[in-house]
């Protein structure tokens, strides 16, 4: 694995952004209950290209849509989940939007309390080690989550047993409204890694290729049986936490405007154009193509049946 397919990487980043825009519109129109934006986090998708979809496992941050698209999730999957239809592949409309899950794509089901899923990633990695497989498990969470005991216990357990799990903190500087300075006393979450007996790396999320490089090093280390790595991706969230959040209450428009100059989708496009790998014409054509996919996904989801009352009662137990 030398370099990722840059055009494939750009494609999932752009698609995630465009899906994001559509979902936000639908929520503001009152057509879906809940939107969980991705915008600003797209650059972290570089990590997905360092993994082996179908073999490795993802227990992701809920804003990892771009990475999930690389792992095989489709716009129809996303919209059926958004509209909570009976054919929602994550769970037949039982969970709120963006509680990602796919057995086939090796994406473990997410709940809401953060970061409950991180110890599960450690468990998957434990299973890999017991079975003698070099499968890697990647788990993502936010800066807020890094304050929780789950992270401490999970990192400790993984390091003791040298498990093939990678801890990825997507630090966007806010846990809803709580800024980093109120969340931790340190500058970098990754500074804690040494205290657990694993390497800690900081990487800017606006550059997906740097994220890829860091991820690849961590993945190869894990596959060699040398244990976990802690990666901190510095990123930013352009939209509110969810559609139920008013971010004007805790940050200025000036700050937002300044951060928008680091838009990972825009920066990557500009880079690809500068390298002559891409151009404006192909970009326009791609946008039309992705828009058509989104239109199709939305129409498909809206036409899909809602769950029936009886369907609320199934799958409590195996019988």
């Amino acid at each position, binding site marked *: 694995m030398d370099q990722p397919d840059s055009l494939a990487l750009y494609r999932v980043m752009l698609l995630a952004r465009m899906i994001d825009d559509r979902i936000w519109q639908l929520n503001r129109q009152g057509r879906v209950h809940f939107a969980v934006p991705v915008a600003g986090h797209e650059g972290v998708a570089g990590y997905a290209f360092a993994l082996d979809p179908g073999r490795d496992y993802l227990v992701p941050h809920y804003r990892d849509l771009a990475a999930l698209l690389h792992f095989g999730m489709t716009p129809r999957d996303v919209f059926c989940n958004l509209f909570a239809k009976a054919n929602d592949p*994550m769970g037949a409309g039982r969970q709120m939007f963006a509680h990602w899950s796919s057995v086939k794509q090796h994406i473990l089901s997410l709940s809401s309390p953060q970061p409950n899923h991180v110890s599960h990633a450690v468990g998957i990695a434990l299973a890999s080690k017991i079975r003698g497989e070099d499968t890697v498990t990647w788990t993502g969470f936010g800066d807020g989550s890094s304050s929780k005991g789950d992270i401490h216990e999970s990192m400790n357990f993984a390091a003791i047993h040298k498990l093939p799990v990678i801890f990825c903190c997507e630090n966007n500087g806010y846990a809803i409204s709580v800024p980093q300075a109120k969340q931790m006393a340190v500058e970098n979450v990754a500074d804690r890694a040494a205290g657990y007996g694993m390497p800690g790396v900081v990487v800017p999320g606006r550059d997906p290729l740097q994220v890829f490089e860091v991820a690849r090093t961590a993945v190869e280390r894990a596959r060699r049986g040398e244990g976990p790595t802690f990666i901190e991706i510095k990123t930013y969230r352009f939209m509110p936490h969810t559609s139920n959040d008013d971010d004007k209450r805790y940050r200025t428009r000036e700050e937002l405007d300044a951060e928008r100059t680091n838009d990972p989708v825009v920066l990557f496009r500009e880079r690809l154009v500068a390298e002559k790998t891409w151009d404006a014409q192909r970009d326009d054509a791609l946008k039309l193509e992705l828009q058509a996919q989104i239109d199709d996904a939305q129409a498909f989801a809206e036409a899909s049946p809602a769950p029936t009352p009886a369907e609320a009662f199934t799958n409590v137990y195996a019988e």
Partner: protein
Amino acid sequence: MPTKTFIEAIRDTLRDEMARDDNVILLGEDVGANGGVFLATEGLQKKFGANRVIDAPLAELAIIGVSIGAAAVGLRPIAEIQFADFIHPAFDQIVNEAAKMRYRTNGAWTCPMVIRTPWGGGIHGGLYHSQSIEAFFCHVPGLKVIAPSTPYDAKGLLAAAIRNPDPVLFLEHKKLYRSIKGEVPDDDYVLPIGKADVKRAGSDVTAIAYGAMLHETLAAAEKLASENISVQVVDLRTLQPLDRETILTSVRKTSKVCIIHEDTRTMGLGAELSAIISEEAFSDLDAPIVRVTGPDLPGIPFNDVGEHTFLPNAEKIANALRALAKY
């Protein structure tokens, strides 16, 4: 047929299940080299290796969370929580994750794991080595809760729990570990989860119990037999799901029912059983439903007098059954 103690039956079942299925692993504090603080897992790490019998750090949340992840990809983890009193840091993982994994994914991801833990009082354990925790977890759809009281039941139900595709909380009453012996067949058998067992036939009064209280209730029934009062003793064995059929059949036979548990009274299993019996066998009752329980105190005192005051025992149970029989 061999006679085994309660803990020997458990240990041998763990051994047999680990031999039967390579996916079964044990994870907990002191379970490996030490063989468990009660010796429930003695010899198992030597036999199956440190890869399958894992000494965990002091971190209950991680013990359960790691087990959930391993179960999701097809291992069959048996997590041990050293004392039921210490399960609370893992409450979030048990209730929000293990119990909901199947339901929230509509059956796609599942959680075939067992959590084993010693519970109950009467061994000078004080507030934090004596707790009953069943009420919290019986209230959670998606979980199963088992509390055997005999070595024979322990083997069959533990085997069933390990083979069950859903998360099971397996409660082992610590007072019974070495004090109760019984015949346990060597051959492989499972008992059905969700089925109670009539441990003593009777006709005047139904007494429903589980755990250590099952044995106190049997002793009370034996005493009352000499007073010509015939007590039918029902051992719940599984606390969630409750065996409504066996319970209601017994209530309809005797028309009088007493529920015994050492757990505190308010919101204990007696409350749920009372509601079920009242809803479904109201016209079969000849007396109000009686509960003999621990008092509503924050814990079982360590001192002998306090502990004796707190816990139901054969004498207190016999008094209640006698009064009920005479009602």
